[in-house]
């Protein structure tokens, strides 16, 4: 059989069900082999979509999403999605065609050194030149994408390698030794030390990153928080690690964090950070974060310890495993604590912020925060939400209450505009029975809007809500705040009709003028499992607050004009 047939057989045996991609000259034997298999191929309209759809799929399935492109531009178009996956630790496998071996290195038609191009941002990439190694290399790549800290990996295959005949003996292959490294073993001594620190803490806080979701450690986090009666906050990637309607969960921290979440961090004397790289966007300058508090850092990737902030205690290992031992030991040495005054005050501040923001609605226009808030109240708890990147993403982060683990999918590290719609499509492929809603900006939407063609063709209905301010809102906000309102290249005209654009792809489009209209359309689409694009006009002048200016500590937060919490902050300090 051809090595491409052997590969596809191995892929199916490894559990691959879907491939997002586009065929071309160099990967045609691969697509020809897929034709003979049960693997479903989804024809996207641009390879970037394929990579983001694979990310959305992987996030829901908890196993690698697979995408494919041909050599040259097909492969290079995947790169944004692969770097996005690297930044957010998403398991994605890319399979690229390559020119035939004899032409490699000759600047042949559609030749690009895709392995060289992705190397800085990928766990492993290889060009397979020996057809007999192809299936084994796939198994290695598939395994490494998911093992320990997940991330992207790439298999590059010259066309003639795919066509070469190999033995048709088929055996299920295991990854080779260096591709199945065990996670670091938890250190019992350090866990006991950490438990003592938490037991003695006056104001402990738990900060969850995306690692909590991958590890499936939600129950352990909640058990620990309930025993300590301490607040839980999350990073952008950790949002939905724990249900946000739980009384101890206070939302996302950081530059555009919830005011009560940022306060929980600044007030803490011990912070348990789980599965997070402690990025500047989440915790601000490391020197400030390290000051006045002890840091316990749990991570499967030991290179994260001290990369951004120095931990007092480092706990290597899988989060679920480490937290399980931590909870058990803590219960032995400390009784369950009663609810702290800090928790109640944080709750009051959060409620006051919500109340203040909603009070700004005078009925004259639609407000982004109210749109998100209403959708959060009305949509089913199992709803999967994706976002683009920009102001709408921050409003979603602030006001969407994620209720099921892993149901929040966003581009956190790379901040890739255009992520939302293809990621939503990939999530819908993974979970066709669940409502999938893309909360998008008009700028982000227009970068990958052709994904709507797939929504129609494959009858996988995604609900797209466009926060339409006819601007690159977040860039405009920075020009407003840090460039003396000198706006440059951030505003669009209103000539692009997003409703007609959606209709052109075969997806119903509506422009709404009221919250009632919005909810009626969205609820109808969800109830009937229909695709819809809802164009929601919002004010170009909206600024997202809270906002911590770049490079500043969380206490330097700028609150919405008119919202005053200083008395409450002072009383927490006391």
């Amino acid at each position: 059989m051809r090595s491409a047939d052997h590969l596809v057989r191995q892929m199916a045996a490894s559990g691959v069900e879907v491939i997002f991609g586009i065929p071309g000259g160099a990967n045609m034997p691969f697509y020809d082999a897929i034709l003979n298999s049960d693997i479903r191929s989804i024809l996207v309209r641009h390879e970037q979509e394929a990579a983001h759809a694979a990310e959305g799929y992987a996030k829901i399935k908890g196993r690698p999403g697979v995408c494919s492109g041909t050599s040259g531009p097909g492969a290079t178009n995947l790169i944004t999605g692969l770097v996005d996956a690297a930044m957010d630790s998403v398991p994605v496998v890319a399979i690229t065609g390559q020119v035939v071996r004899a032409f490699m290195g000759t600047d042949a038609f559609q030749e690009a050194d895709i392995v060289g191009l992705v190397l800085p941002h990928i766990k492993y990439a290889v060009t397979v030149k020996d057809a007999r190694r192809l299936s084994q290399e796939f198994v290695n790549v598939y395994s490494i994408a998911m093992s320990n800290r997940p991330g992207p990996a790439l298999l590059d295959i010259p066309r003639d390698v795919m066509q070469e005949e190999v033995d048709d003996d088929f055996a299920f292959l295991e990854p080779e030794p260096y591709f199945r490294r065990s996670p670091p073993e938890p250190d019992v001594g350090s866990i006991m030390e950490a438990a003592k620190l938490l037991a003695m803490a006056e104001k402990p806080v738990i900060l969850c990153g995306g690692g909590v979701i991958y590890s499936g450690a939600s129950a352990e986090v909640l058990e620990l928080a309930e025993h300590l009666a301490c607040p839980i906050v999350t990073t952008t990637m950790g949002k939905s690690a724990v249900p946000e309607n739980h009384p101890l969960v206070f939302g996302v921290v950081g530059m555009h964090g919830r005011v009560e979440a940022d306060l929980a961090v600044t007030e803490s004397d011990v912070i348990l950070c789980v599965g997070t790289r402690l990025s500047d966007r989440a915790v601000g300058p490391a020197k400030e974060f390290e000051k006045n508090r002890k840091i316990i850092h749990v991570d499967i990737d030991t290179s994260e310890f001290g990369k951004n902030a120095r931990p007092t205690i480092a706990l290597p290992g899988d989060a679920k495993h480490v937290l399980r031992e931590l909870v058990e030991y803590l219960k032995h040495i400390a009784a369950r604590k009663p609810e702290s005054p800090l928790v109640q005050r944080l709750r009051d501040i959060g409620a006051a912020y919500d109340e203040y923001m909603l009070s700004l609605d005078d009925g004259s226009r639609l407000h982004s925060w109210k749109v998100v808030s209403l959708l959060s109240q009305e949509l089913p708890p199992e709803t999967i939400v994706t976002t683009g990147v920009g102001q709408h993403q921050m409003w979603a982060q602030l006001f969407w209450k994620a209720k099921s683990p892993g149901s929040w999918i966003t581009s956190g590290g790379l901040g890739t505009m255009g992520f939302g719609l293809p990621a939503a499509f990939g999530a819908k492929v993974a979970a066709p029975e669940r409502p999938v809603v893309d909360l998008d900006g008009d700028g982000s939407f227009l970068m990958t809007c052709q994904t709507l063609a797939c929504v129609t063709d494959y009858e996988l209905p995604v609900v797209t809500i466009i926060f339409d301010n006819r601007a690159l809102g977040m860039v405009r906000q920075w020009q407003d705040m840090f460039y003396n309102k000198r706006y440059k290249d951030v505003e669009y005209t209103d000539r692009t009709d997003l409703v007609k654009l959606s209709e052109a792809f075969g997806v119903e489009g509506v422009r709404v003028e009221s919250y009632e209209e919005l909810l009626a359309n969205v609820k109808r689409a969800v109830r009937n499992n229909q695709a819809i694009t809802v164009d929601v006009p919002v004010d170009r002048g909206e600024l997202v607050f809270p906002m911590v200016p770049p490079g500043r500590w969380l206490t330097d937060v700028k609150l919405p004009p008119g919202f005053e919490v200083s008395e409450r902050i002072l009383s927490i300090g006391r």
Partner: protein
Amino acid sequence: MRMLIHVDLINSPDAVAKMMLTVKQGGLSIETMSFNSVDDGRKLSGTLTLIGPEEKGEWLAKKLLNFPYFHAAKMLKLE
């Protein structure tokens, strides 16, 4: 500070490139480096003298082990 990094890696230009790119990510400067093939040419053994913050050297040695190109990586402080 100066530090020595010893690394065992697969014998491929990609692995060496990944090594260099990770050194770059750590913001470390290179003083010397040498790679020799071992194990009948299947692997490379590399020694690098690098200059930069100690914690970046420690980060590098740990980070490399996230990638299957690298089989072992150790950092030794020189001064």
